[in-house]
């Protein structure tokens, strides 16, 4: 990721074009280059609009150059997010500049670098994730601009995005470096549990809601897998991402203290806290659990605003968006912090995260009354959560280890676009190694997989079956049906397309018999 920037093309005039820039990373970029980057996007959008409107206004615009990929995306009316990434390796036939004429082998097909590991959709997903992260901390940006002026937004973005990008780009986990199909999925892996256990989980969390009415939403994760959430799909996904970031990170011996943010705006706390958490020593699991995010030190509460950051979460599905309509979740006592009509239906909450062995409980609290600033409140909650959740957590652990023990003969990833459930073998815990199942994905497989998924999302292609070019690899299968995607790799022993078909049927019989009717995977 070479550059990340935010701008509003309607700001500034001819001579003050630098006012269009709201945020620019790296900050050391000369102002003239910043202005040019914005101008490039303006020129491209104006040019393409000459030829008729694009299908949807939120459609990202991608510019491919020989060395880079630029993605622009209008996140909110007038507010654009852009990311520029460098192509990992220059394709062989890169000499395509103005000097290249007919010097190539006579009449060869224009050997344009068709092999592009990064599909546009992968970068779109990344850019959208950048925006959603900012939104999580700040809420709707246009509202901030309206309240505090564009200069205020500029200051806030600088304060919020620096730690945020630091987290995204932190070593070993550079999201841009390991972009693969699982990142575009942006799905969540679910812990499959039976209905009885599910009800027990629900009951435990309902106890919490009943005894602590200022807790508005809860979610439960087990080893990074989603067990329960009372939020909408989008909100759950955002929290899932956030919690994964909080709990992950390189283990360092030297804990990083929380920066002094006592004067900073509420919005600035979230990523500063996440950043500090990632770099602090992880305490060994306490049997009594602990607050990851909440009053860390019960006696010292002047930092509680930092420890209990404000998050802006989507509680209802976006109306009229691309997601399918769903019944709105009716909650009594709707918080008053209700946002104006916007793209997302966001609400502001205080975030508390409690870790109990392998389980993580996420609680969203009403901002007012500020019970979250009282240490006593945390003591009450901790004892309640431990009491209710301990027995359930043990059952979850049992289920989890049972599933881990199952030997999975197939290599596949499955995504349900409706609830963003990802099922892979084994669970995408191993995603850093780019694996599906036990074997690492080769470069070619990634190219093909990303391309296939892009084709699926464009909505025309339904299935792809192909023999991978290397003889040590087998076949690749990708299939989409009713918003459900499945990708499978076979080993090289499978000889023909007919055998692949049989493998696919066997996979369905084994892993999806309870999900699919016959129409899928036939």
């Amino acid at each position, binding site marked *: 990721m070479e550059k990340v920037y935010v701008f509003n093309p309607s700001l500034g005039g001819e001579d003050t074009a630098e006012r269009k820039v709201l945020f620019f990373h790296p900050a050391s970029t000369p102002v003239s280059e910043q202005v*040019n980057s914005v*101008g*490039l996007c303006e*020129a*491209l*959008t*104006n*040019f*393409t609009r*000459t*030829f*008729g409107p*694009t*299908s*949807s206004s939120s*459609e*990202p*615009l*991608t*510019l*491919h*150059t*020989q*060395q*880079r990929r630029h993605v622009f995306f209008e996140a909110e009316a007038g507010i654009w997010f852009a990311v520029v990434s460098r192509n990992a390796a220059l394709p*062989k036939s890169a000499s*395509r*500049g*103005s*000097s*290249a*004429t*007919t010097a190539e082998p*006579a*009449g060869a*097909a*224009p050997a*344009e670098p*068709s*092999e592009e590991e990064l599909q546009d959709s992968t970068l779109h997903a990344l850019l959208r994730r950048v925006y959603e992260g900012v939104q999580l901390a700040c809420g709707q940006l246009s509202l901030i601009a309206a309240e505090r002026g564009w200069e205020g937004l500029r200051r806030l973005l600088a304060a919020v995005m620096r730690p945020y990008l630091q987290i995204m780009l932190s070593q070993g986990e550079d999201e841009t470096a390991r972009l693969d199909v699982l990142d575009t999925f942006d799905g969540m892996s679910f812990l499959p549990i039976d209905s009885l256990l599910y009800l027990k989980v629900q009951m435990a969390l309902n106890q919490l809601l009943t005894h602590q009415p200022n807790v508005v939403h809860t979610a439960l994760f087990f080893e990074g897998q989603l067990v329960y959430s009372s939020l909408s799909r989008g909100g759950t996904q955002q929290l899932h991402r956030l919690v994964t970031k909080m709990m992950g990170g390189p283990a360092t011996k030297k804990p990083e203290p929380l920066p002094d943010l006592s004067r900073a705006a509420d919005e600035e706390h979230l990523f500063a806290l996440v950043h500090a958490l990632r770099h602090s020593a992880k305490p060994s699991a306490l049997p009594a659990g602990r607050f990851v995010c909440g009053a860390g030190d019960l006696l010292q509460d002047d930092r509680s605003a930092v420890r209990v950051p404000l998050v802006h979460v989507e509680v209802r599905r976006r109306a009229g968006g691309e997601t399918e309509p769903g019944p709105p979740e009716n909650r009594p006592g709707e918080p008053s912090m209700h946002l104006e009509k916007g793209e997302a239906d966001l609400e502001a909450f205080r975030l508390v995260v409690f870790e109990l062995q392998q389980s993580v409980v996420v609680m969203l609290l009403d901002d007012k009354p500020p019970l979250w600033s009282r240490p006593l409140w945390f003591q009450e909650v901790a004892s309640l959560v431990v009491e209710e959740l301990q027995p359930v957590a043990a059952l979850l652990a049992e289920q989890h280890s049972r599933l881990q023990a199952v030997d999975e003969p197939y290599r596949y990833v499955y995504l349900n676009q409706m609830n963003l459930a990802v099922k892979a073998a084994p669970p995408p815990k191993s995603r850093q190694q780019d694996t599906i199942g036990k074997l690492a994905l080769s470069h*070619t497989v990634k*190219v*093909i997989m990303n*391309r296939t998924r892009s*084709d699926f999302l464009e909505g*025309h*292609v*339904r*299935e*792809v*079956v*192909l*023999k991978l*070019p*290397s003889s040590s690899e087998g076949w690749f299968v990708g299939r989409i049906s009713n918003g459900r995607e499945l990708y499978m790799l076979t080993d090289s022993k499978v000889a*023909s*397309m*007919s055998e692949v*078909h049989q493998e696919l049927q066997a996979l369905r019989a084994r892993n999806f018999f309870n999900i699919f009717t016959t129409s899928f995977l*036939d």
Partner: protein
Amino acid sequence: MSALCSPRKRYDEEEPNTPAWAAHRKHFFILSSAGKPIFSRFGDESKLSPVAGVLQALVSFVDDSGDTIRHVRVGAHRVVFLMRGPLYLVAVSTCGDTVEYLWQQLHYLHAQIISILTSKVEQIFARNASFDLRGLLGGTDRVIRSLIRYANAEPSLLFNAVPSLRLPPPVRAELGKVLAARPADLLFAVMVARSHLVHLYKAKKSVLHPQDVLLVMNTVASSSSFREDESWLPICLPCFNDKGFVYAHVSFVAEELCLVLITPKADAFSPLSAFRQQVMQRLEAMPELLGTLRSSISEPQYRVDEFGVPEVRHFIYKLNAVEQLSAPRLGPDAGPQCPYRTRDMAKGLFRVYQHAHALIHGTSKPLRELLVSTATETVIARNSGDAELYVVFSPLVSKPVAIAACQKLHRSLKKEHASLFLLSTAK
């Protein structure tokens, strides 16, 4: 696919920057590196300076950062750039063509311009960057337009292969003998009928690349004036030699049968004209052969049902050794097995082929076997290295059935090589 033709419209007189102009689904622009418009598929290019200016600015802007612009995607829009020396070629499309194929079309457009002007065009621009190329290209718009139209529904440019006419092997051999009695200065002789290759003669040690054959075929097809008499035109074959002209003697020797004789000598008209006379006489002396030839030409290509594999809707078969391709007919008389009866349906089918082709060739090492299923088609592609076969089925076909049908078709096609392709041109 030539059976599906619609009347031509005069797009070049259209007013640019109107909604109707903008709504065209595939624009091509050619401009000089100084931003002067040279050609536009739609609209009068002299009024297109603003568009050319923007395109030129985009190219040079990215150039300034030490990079090269390639393409832009937003929604269904694709803007594809190809910079060749002083010429910038740009395609703006919402028609669903793959980026790879748009590039290929630009590449061919450039080659077609070189075929008219040779690569000396670059020197002209080197001397005077703001030179107005339209004067030199004058009247050859038609050739470029004809190429664009051809690229819309014919797979030849996509596969970089010449479509060949299916002929009984003895007829083809006899034609070869007729052409072999050539005059000394003949470099190539190309026999073409309805945009299908009938026969080809090459002088020893000279290579005629499929791209050059396609450019010659397009030049011949672009104007009906070639039908009337013998014509003599200088032409550059970019793959053969992009620096200079060769000379083409173009005439029709029988109904729909065009003979193109190519020589390096500017003053060889009369020996070639005499040879053409000789070819005509020999053909007329063989009425039986001419009859078979006529019936093959009157129904170029064949119906897909002839191969006895009822599941197959359509296919494209490319033999790599000769760089030729063969495909059954489309259109109203394509037979009950082939549902592609209108031009739009044929275009839709072609996009599916484009897609499969892009997947097969999208990795550094081409794929060997592929199945792609869309809402309207299932395609199975097999690439053995010697040949590429793309077979289209209904979207509802069961996989085992389609796989078996594909194998059966492949076996029958292998037996038909001699009639489907002109094999004597193998390298």
